[in-house]
């Protein structure tokens, strides 16, 4: 053992230090970490970051001082087996009082901003930085996807929350099943969702961008794939998005009549199928015959039993996410997969393979059928 021991002793501390340095530096470099808590892009997250960084500096200072004292003692007081007995010191009241008081003082410096921040973050600002009333968004947790509602706008959407930059968002949350936790690291901290109690959170996005978020409370089988995005749009973009959602809903489809009535299952009836049937201008314009085919399949394959395509005025409670605007969403399967045609097709044909245990079963779609559905959904911008 002689060789490794000597080797370790000499090179280990240096090696470890280098490793620490690499890790620390890697963590500090910005842009590659879209879900980072260290790069706040919203006011709530900034408040939190400020108090966190204060704590980090105190902690680092204490860490360095105490570890240094420890190392110093270790190196300074090495003894040999037959050294005489060292001086027998039993303690020192003065020293002990000092090292009780100093940490207490340090903690006071941490405690004050902590309490200040607790109260600052607890209060939803009465008005946004842009002077408007905060925008209310209701977050509803489902195993394992997110529903977002804008009561003032009447919009229902899923897995992708759009918010205008500069306007405070007043978030109210509930879950329909088990606990979840809404977490959007760059904009705000997390808050849990309860079935019996509305919880709240707020934030104002300061920069336009796409911010990934995640469910942060263990909620069963697919907790790991319960992600979402917050899209912070410029006010103009946000208005455009709202307008598109409104459009999802304006034209009630004449095409519905074209569907043979026997293919409209009871499930569709029960959930107000006729209401959900809408056609965007784009779909009408589309020449692709697959779109019409897809629309038909959407009705006949029971999709409409769980999904509404109507972002405004659709049925309030659905098993599956609202698909209004699904064609333009960044991700599918609750933030897990890029919304490419290929992925979407895969999802439709075999959702269980992507996300075992989701309520959406396989619906035996042939390639052609799946592609038709994809084409159809793609028109929902």
């Amino acid at each position, binding site marked *: 053992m002689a060789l490794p021991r000597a080797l370790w002793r000499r090179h280990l501390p240096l090696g470890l230090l280098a490793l620490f340095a690499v890790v620390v530096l890697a963590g500090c470099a910005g842009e590659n970490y879209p879900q980072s808590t260290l790069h706040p892009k919203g006011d709530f997250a900034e408040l939190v970051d400020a108090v966190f960084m204060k704590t980090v500096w105190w902690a680092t200072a204490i860490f360095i001082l105490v570890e240094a004292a420890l190392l110093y003692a270790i190196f300074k007081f090495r003894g040999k087996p037959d050294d005489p007995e060292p001086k027998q010191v039993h303690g020192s009241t003065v020293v002990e009082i000092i090292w009780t008081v100093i940490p207490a003082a340090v903690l006071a410096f941490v405690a004050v901003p902590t309490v200040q921040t607790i109260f600052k973050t*607890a*209060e939803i600002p009465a008005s946004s930085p842009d002077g408007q009333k905060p925008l209310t968004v209701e977050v509803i947790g489902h195993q394992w996807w997110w529903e977002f509602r804008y009561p003032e706008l009447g919009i229902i959407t899923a897995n992708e929350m759009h918010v205008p930059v500069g306007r405070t968002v007043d978030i109210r949350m509930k879950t329909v099943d088990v606990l979840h936790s809404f977490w959007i690291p760059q904009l705000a901290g997390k808050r849990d969702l309860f079935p019996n*109690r*509305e*919880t*709240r959170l707020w934030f104002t996005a300061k920069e336009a961008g796409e911010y990934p978020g995640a469910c942060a409370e263990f909620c069963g089988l697919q907790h790991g794939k319960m992600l979402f995005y917050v899209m912070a749009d410029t006010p103009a973009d946000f208005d455009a998005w709202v307008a598109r959602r409104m459009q999802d809903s304006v034209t009630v489809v004449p095409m519905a009549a074209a569907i043979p009535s026997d293919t409209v299952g009871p499930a569709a009836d029960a959930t107000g199928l006729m209401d959900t049937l809408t056609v965007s201008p784009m779909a009408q314009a589309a020449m692709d015959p697959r779109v019409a085919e897809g629309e038909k399949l959407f009705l006949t394959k029971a999709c409409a039993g769980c999904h509404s395509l109507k972002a405004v005025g659709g049925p309030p409670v659905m098993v599956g996410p609202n698909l209004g605007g699904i064609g333009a969403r960044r991700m599918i399967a609750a933030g897990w997969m890029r919304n490419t045609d290929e992925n979407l097709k895969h999802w439709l044909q075999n959702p269980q393979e992507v996300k075992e245990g989701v309520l959406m079963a396989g619906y035996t779609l042939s390639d052609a059928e799946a592609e038709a559905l994809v084409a159809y959904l793609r028109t929902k911008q």
Partner: protein
Amino acid sequence: MAGHADAAHSNAGKYIQIAVVLFALTALEVALYEVCYGGLKTMAPGLGASLEPWFVEVLLLLSAFKFWFVAMFYMHLKFDMKLLSWLFLFSLIIAVIVIGALIILFGYNRGLWWPGGKW
């Protein structure tokens, strides 16, 4: 060892006195209930009305007395080692902290204590 020593301190007479006190306090508890909410309410409405705001407090106080009597005399805490009293007291303190904190926290969550307590 210790057990034999206590016997000298307390005797049947004392035990009977305490039993009487315990019964009296229990009777008071029931009477308090009856006066505030039960059958006696109609007979002494003035008394009931004036006691009612203190119902919970008085009830807790009376039970605390009973508790104290049993613990001190029947359980010999008054005559036994102090350590046993501390043992019991410490447990009770933690118990009261837990009960109290939970009541406060849930009251708060339900908006009973703080206007914004909803969230």
